[in-house]
């Protein structure tokens, strides 16, 4: 099977279309960053409190919001998390609501607001840690164990928590459900006296203080910058400096468009998204290098031809590989996007966009820059820059 056989497309001839296409997307992205959504930094970078709550029934957003207002949490955002059937809600508190002195105040306030109808003196089993359960069991001693009570009840508490978290997905709707767990029936029965079940469980808490966010933002920027400089140096060393410049401009273009897409869709940029962007820098560079390698090889073989001719030929020769690799990587990333779950959503979105753009840009941006530079040198009456002789 073969998709591309003896293709000969004049890619360089279409460079103005490419330029227009890239400009439209870059400018749209930059405009969105400047005037519309800004850069939608995620919690990691802006600081704040984020609590992921799973309900045992479809959540009532206005009721949740009212509960929060009642306890004085006003700067908040409540949104669905993942599929509707998950009954999961993400509550975001502004960094202003995140006290630097008691970092977890927002979290505890949220939980107590939602537990507002708790029976007095009872503990919420859906949000109890295994330690709390163990201490309770030690106190009650329903199994009448003599020695090793600590050890035995730790195991019981663990069994109860495991059943709640791993089998029931974090929320129990009735204490009777625990009868199916591996915990001792006597221990389970004793829970009735001291525990009640709220209609939610907290699955994930992230609290980032104000200092950390700024620090991370700076580091993400630096990491991206160092990555680009690393490429520039390596390519300058392996090829000629103009190749490095072309590759870096290309990668910058990809990064800009990807971040722009996040801004346009108002999707949060978390730490993992930055990781995805850095991966893209590597990936897009891969693609560019494959084309450059071919150009370098062809320059030695086709000494009489014009550079634009050589570049076109090189792109066409590697086109089959470019499309195949991009397609296959895209397949795997698509699998991540579809099946990888909500936590990886931003990460896989960045890769889905980035792989499309990264593949496009090595053909549409990197190669034309090389040719344009060469033409410019000739126009100024200089000799075209010596093409790389080193191939090893």
């Amino acid at each position, binding site marked *: *099977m073969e998709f591309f056989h003896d293709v000969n497309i004049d890619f360089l001839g279409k460079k103005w279309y490419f330029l227009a296409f890239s400009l439209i997307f870059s400018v749209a992205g930059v405009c969105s960053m400047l005037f519309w959504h800004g850069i939608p930094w995620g919690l990691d970078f802006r600081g704040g409190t984020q609590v992921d709550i*799973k309900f045992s029934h479809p959540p009532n957003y206005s009721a949740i919001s009212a509960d929060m207002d009642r306890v004085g949490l006003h700067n908040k955002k409540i949104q669905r998390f993942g599929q509707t059937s998950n009954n999961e809600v993400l509550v975001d508190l502004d960094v202003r609501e995140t006290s630097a002195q008691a*970092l*977890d105040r927002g979290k*505890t306030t949220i939980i107590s607001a939602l537990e507002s109808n708790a029976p007095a003196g009872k503990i919420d089993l859906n949000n109890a*840690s*295994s330690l*709390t359960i163990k201490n309770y069991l030690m106190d009650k001693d329903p199994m009448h164990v003599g020695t090793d009570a600590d050890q035995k009840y730790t195991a019981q508490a663990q069994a109860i928590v495991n059943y709640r*978290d*791993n089998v029931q*997905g*974090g929320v129990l709707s009735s204490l009777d459900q625990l009868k199916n767990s591996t915990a001792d029936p006597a221990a389970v029965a004793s829970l009735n006296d001291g525990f009640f079940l709220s209609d939610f469980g*907290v*699955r*994930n*808490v*992230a609290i980032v*203080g104000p*200092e*950390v966010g700024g620090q991370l933002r700076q*580091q993400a920027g*630096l*990491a991206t910058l160092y*990555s680009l400089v*690393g*490429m520039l140096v*390596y*390519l300058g060393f392996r090829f000629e400096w103009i190749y490095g410049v072309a590759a870096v401009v290309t990668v910058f273009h990809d990064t800009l468009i990807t971040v722009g897409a996040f801004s346009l869709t108002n999707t949060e940029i978390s*730490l*993992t998204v*930055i*990781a995805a962007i*850095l*991966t893209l820098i*590597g*990936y897009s*560079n891969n693609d560019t*290098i*494959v084309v450059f*390698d071919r150009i370098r090889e062809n320059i030695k073989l086709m000494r009489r031809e014009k550079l634009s001719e050589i570049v076109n030929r090189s792109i066409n*020769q590697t086109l*089959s590989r470019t499309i*195949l*690799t991009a*397609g*296959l*990587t895209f*397949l*795997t*990333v*698509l*699998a*991540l996007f*579809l*099946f*990888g*779950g909500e*936590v*990886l959503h931003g*990460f896989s979105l960045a890769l889905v966009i980035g792989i499309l753009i990264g593949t496009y840009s090595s053909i549409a941006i990197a190669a034309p820059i090389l040719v344009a530079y060469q033409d410019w040198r000739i126009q100024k009456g200089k000799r075209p820059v010596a093409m790389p002789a080193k191939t090893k």
Partner: protein
Amino acid sequence: MNKNFLWKLGLILATLLFFLFGIFGIPHSLSGAGLLTAITDHIHLGLDLKGGTHLILQVQVNDAVNVDAQNAIEVLKQQLNSHKIDFSDVSQPEPQNNPDHILVKGVQASARTDLLGIVEDRLPEYQITGGADNSWNLSMKPTMLTDLKTKAVTQAIETIRNRIDQLGVSEPTIQEHGLGQYQILVQLPGVDDPARVKDIMQSTAMLEIKQSLGGPYPSEQAALQDKGGILPADAILLPGHSMPGAEGEGEGQAWYLVSRVSAVTGKDLRDAQPSRDQNGQPSVSFTLTGEGGQRFYNFTSAHVGDSLAVVLDNKVQEVANIKEPIRDRGEISGGRMSEQQSKDLSMILRSGALPAGIKYLEERTVGPSLGTDSIRAGVRAAVAGMLAVLIFMLIYYRGAGINADVALILNLIILLGFMGYFEAVLTLPGIAGVILTVGMGVDSNVLIFERIREELRNGKTPPSAVDQGFSHAWVTIVDTHVTTIVSAAILFLFGTGPVKGFAVTLTFGLLANLFTAVFVSRFIFDWILSRKQRGEALSI
């Protein structure tokens, strides 16, 4: 079969076994469950997959500097007095921002030599400048200051580790967090309710035993009135619990006047254990070291009949009468301790005091249910992506597709084996890294195969096409791998937790890919070619 061939086959099989061992070890049983436990024993899951708490805290190093500076001020005053040098004031002008800065006022220029001599002899870590207006500036030498701060962080890590070890958290990570200044990263797998752990870590538990000079007073004003409006210079007022059992005083605060100097401090403790006081209430009993015991004996002998105050974190916990000299035993009670509190307090006292306060900067808790879901989703995506690629390669390259698939699977085994051997942590982004490695790893195969096809089209024979294909593609493969590893390395240096896990899998995956896509794949081609007749076509 020639010797070269056998040698390569041996190497590939040995690699396969070596890395399989890295993933599974020697499993107890070959059943599905047995293999699964074998894997989880060898491949460590990150906090985001198994649940737990991740904390970043900052050591308030200025606290430690402040302690040192206050000590220096005392020394300085004492020395100036004993050298009979007049001064009007020794103080820290900016204890918040420049805690190491000490200002000495009112020392005549004629005493300059003596003053410099005192600083040089008794405070070698300080440098002194100035002299204008008879005021002198002392500040800590920069290297000393850095030393002091670094030491505070190391000591805080040590103390926190002691405390967490005693709590019985398994496999905690406590290390300096290189990203920020004076920050410590604490990871506690399996802890999904960090409140208690945080309290215990944060507690400075500064224990002091001082002489009680008066109290309890209902308010600060009352204490002042009692002392005629002026407090003695060597005494301070500290808040405390009201006397237990006193009717009508409830939970309200009481104030005590205590001596500024301490007879013994937490540093003099040898051991502390939870116990019960004479009323059967939970308390903490402690024993002192030999030297501390001697000091305590001297103090109690000199003050029989007076009262002593047990002060914890600048709060008077208990006041007791000294009936007879005490050598090395004591008890902290009062304040209505619960049993858990007495256990925690004794544990904190045993683990040593924090050299400076700590502040939490970041807290993340992943519930185990989310981790389970993430693993499920990650594995599902990995399997789906992997299958899609494997099947596509088979269809597109037919015979050579098998070759690529073998290389890819081997790549995955080596990657996971690497993780097992290096005890690298598999995070959710790490799983994504594995998937991405599959996608990018197949690139090398595609590069090589496309090149071979091209060479075949140009009329080369299969053996020479394979040879040319590999040698041409090799240059490109090296370039692409190096650049990707560069960005992965930068990620590793800058990233934390999950992101670091991603960088690790990506790097290992790419390294493994160099071996599988080039060496193994080449070997399979050579093997196929050696079994073919001259001129027979290659399935690619």
